[in-house]
C-alpha cells in the first residue's frame, strides 16, 4: 500500500473522529477551550520527546496540566478563562520552540507539528487513531444517553441526578483524545478547524442530534479526502488544504441554511436541537 493510500485511510479516520467529537464540543460551546488544548499539546510533545517518552503521552499529560491550571486560574478576579488560556497558549508555544531549539537533535519538526504531516503518517499513527476512536465510541455507547440529555436540557439533567461535573469531565477527556490523535492530520494550529467546522456545518444543515452525529463525521472525512487530493494535485500543504476544505464545507452549509430559511439568520432565536 502506498504512503498516499495510507494517508487517505488515516485522514478518513481522523476526519470522522473529529467530526463526531466536534458535535459535542460545538453543542457544549467548548471550542475555545479545545483550541487551547490543541496549542498546549506542542510543548508536551516536545518535552516527552526530549525525555524519550512517546509524543502522544506527552501531549495527553500537557492537556491534563492545562485543565488543572485553568481551573485554578479561573477563580481569580480579572483572570477569566480567556485570559488564562491566552497566557497558557503563548507559554505553550514559546516553551515548545525554545525546548526544540535547545535540543536540535530531537525528531519533532515544528512545521510538521504545527501544520500536520499526514503524508508521513505511519501505521502506528493509524493505530493510535483507531484506539482513540474505539475509546470515544465506547464512551458514547455507555454514557451517550446522559450526555445527550445534558446537552439538550441542562437543568432537567441535573434534576434527574446527572452530575454536570462528570459530563463536562467526560467531554473534556473525549476532546483531549481527539485533539491528540488529530494532530498528525492537521497540526496543532489547524486541528481545531477539523473539530469545529464539520460539526458546525452539520448544525447548520439539521436540527436533529442523531443526524448531526453521522453527518459531521461524513463531512469531516470528506474534508480530509478532498483536502488530501487537492494538496496532491496542486502541490500544496496537506494540513492547510484539509483545514481549508472543512471551512469551505462550513461556509457552504451556512449558505444553504441562509437560502433555506432566510429569516432564521443572526437575530432570531435559534430552533432547538431535537433528538
Amino acid at each position: 500500500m502506498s504512503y498516499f493510500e495510507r494517508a487517505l485511510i488515516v485522514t478518513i479516520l481522523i476526519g470522522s473522529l473529529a467530526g463526531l467529537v466536534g458535535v459535542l464540543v460545538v453543542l457544549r460551546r467548548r471550542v475555545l477551550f479545545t483550541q487551547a488544548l490543541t496549542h498546549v499539546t506542542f510543548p508536551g510533545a516536545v518535552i516527552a520527546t526530549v525525555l524519550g517518552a512517546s509524543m502522544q503521552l506527552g501531549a495527553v499529560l500537557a492537556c491534563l496540566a492545562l485543565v488543572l491550571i485553568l481551573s485554578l486560574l479561573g477563580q481569580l478576579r480579572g483572570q477569566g478563562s480567556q485570559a488564562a488560556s491566552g497566557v497558557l497558549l503563548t507559554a505553550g508555544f514559546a516553551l515548545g520552540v525554545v525546548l526544540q531549539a535547545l535540543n536540535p537533535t530531537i525528531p519533532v519538526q515544528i512545521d510538521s507539528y504545527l501544520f500536520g504531516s499526514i503524508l508521513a503518517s505511519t501505521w502506528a499513527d493509524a493505530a493510535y487513531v483507531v484506539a482513540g476512536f474505539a475509546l470515544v465510541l465506547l464512551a458514547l455507547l455507555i454514557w451517550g444517553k446522559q450526555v445527550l440529555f445534558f446537552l439538550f436540557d441542562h437543568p432537567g439533567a441535573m434534576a434527574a441526578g446527572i452530575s454536570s461535573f462528570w459530563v463536562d469531565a467526560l467531554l473534556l477527556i473525549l476532546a483531549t483524545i481527539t485533539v491528540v490523535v488529530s494532530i498528525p492530520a492537521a497540526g496543532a494550529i489547524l486541528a481545531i478547524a477539523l473539530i469545529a467546522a464539520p460539526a458546525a456545518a452539520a448544525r447548520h444543515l439539521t436540527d436533529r442530534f442523531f443526524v448531526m452525529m453521522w453527518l459531521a463525521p461524513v463531512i469531516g472525512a470528506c474534508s480530509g479526502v478532498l483536502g488530501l487530493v487537492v494538496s496532491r494535485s496542486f502541490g500544496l500543504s496537506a494540513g492547510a488544504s484539509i483545514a481549508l476544505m472543512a471551512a469551505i464545507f462550513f461556509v457552504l452549509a451556512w449558505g444553504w441554511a441562509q437560502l433555506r430559511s432566510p429569516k432564521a439568520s443572526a437575530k432570531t432565536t435559534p430552533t432547538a436541537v431535537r433528538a
Partner: protein
Amino acid sequence: MNMIDALTTAFQLPFMMRALVVLLVLSLAAGFIGVFINLRGLEFLTDGLTHAVFPGLAAGFIVGGKDGALLGAIIAATAATLLLTWLSNRRVGNDATTAIVFTALFSVGVLIVSTSSQQTSGLEQLLFGHLLTVTEAEALTTIGVSALALAVVLLTFRRQLFRSFDEEGSAAAGYRVLLTDVALNVSIALVVVAASAAVGNLLVLAVLIVPGALARLVAVRMGYLFVTAIAVGMLASWLGLATSFTLSVDAGFNVPGGATVALFFVATYVLALLYRTVVKQVRT
C-alpha cells in the same frame, strides 16, 4: 561573557540596540492595547486576529516585500473582522464561527507560503520572527506601525474605556459600538503587523495578552493598569533579549529571540500570580 555583560554592555552592539528599541516600542503599544484586551475579554479574538493577519502578511510579502506585508495584513484583518460579523449566527456558537474563520484564513496563509519558493525559512521567520537580525528598515517600520496603533487607540480612548465598562451606556451616549470595536481590532492587527519581524506571528500573542492580564493581577486603578502593563513588558523584553543573546552567542543555540522574550513575559506573569496569591493569603 557572563549574564551581567549580556544585560548591559551587550547592548552596545548595534543589532542588540536595534532589537531592544523595537521591543521597547512594541511593549509600549502592546501594553497599552493589552489592558483593553483584558478588560474586554478579547484574548480569543486576539489569538484569532493574529492567525487572520497571517495570510495577509504572507501574500503581501510575496507580492510587494515588506511594505506589501503591512498593507496585506491590514486588509486581512479588516476582512476577517467583517467576515466574522457577517457569519456570526446563533445556531452555531460564536466561538465555533470565530475558530473556523480564523483557522481557515491561517491555512490560506500556509497555502500561500507553501506555493512560494523560499518556503521553509520564510514560514519560520513569519511565525517566530528574527529578533537578532532585524534590519534598520524593519525597525523603522515597527516603530511607525506601533505609533499608528497607539494613535488609533489614543484617539478613541474615551469611547474604548466607556465601552469596556458599560457597553449599553456607551451606545446610549451615542458612541457607535461597531466603530469602537473596529478601531480596537485594527489597532490589535497593527501591533501584530509591527511585531511580525521581531517576535513573529505566533509569539506576538505573548506581547499583547500577558502584560494586560498581569496588570489586572496586581493593579486596581486604571492609570496603574496601563503603567504596570507597559513597564512589565519593557522589563521582560530586556531580560528576554539578554537571555536570547547569551543562548545564541555564547552557547550557540539557534533559539528564535522572540521565544525567549515570550517566555520572560510568561515568567513575569507567574511571579505576579505568586505575589497576588501570597498577598491575598496574608491579608485574609
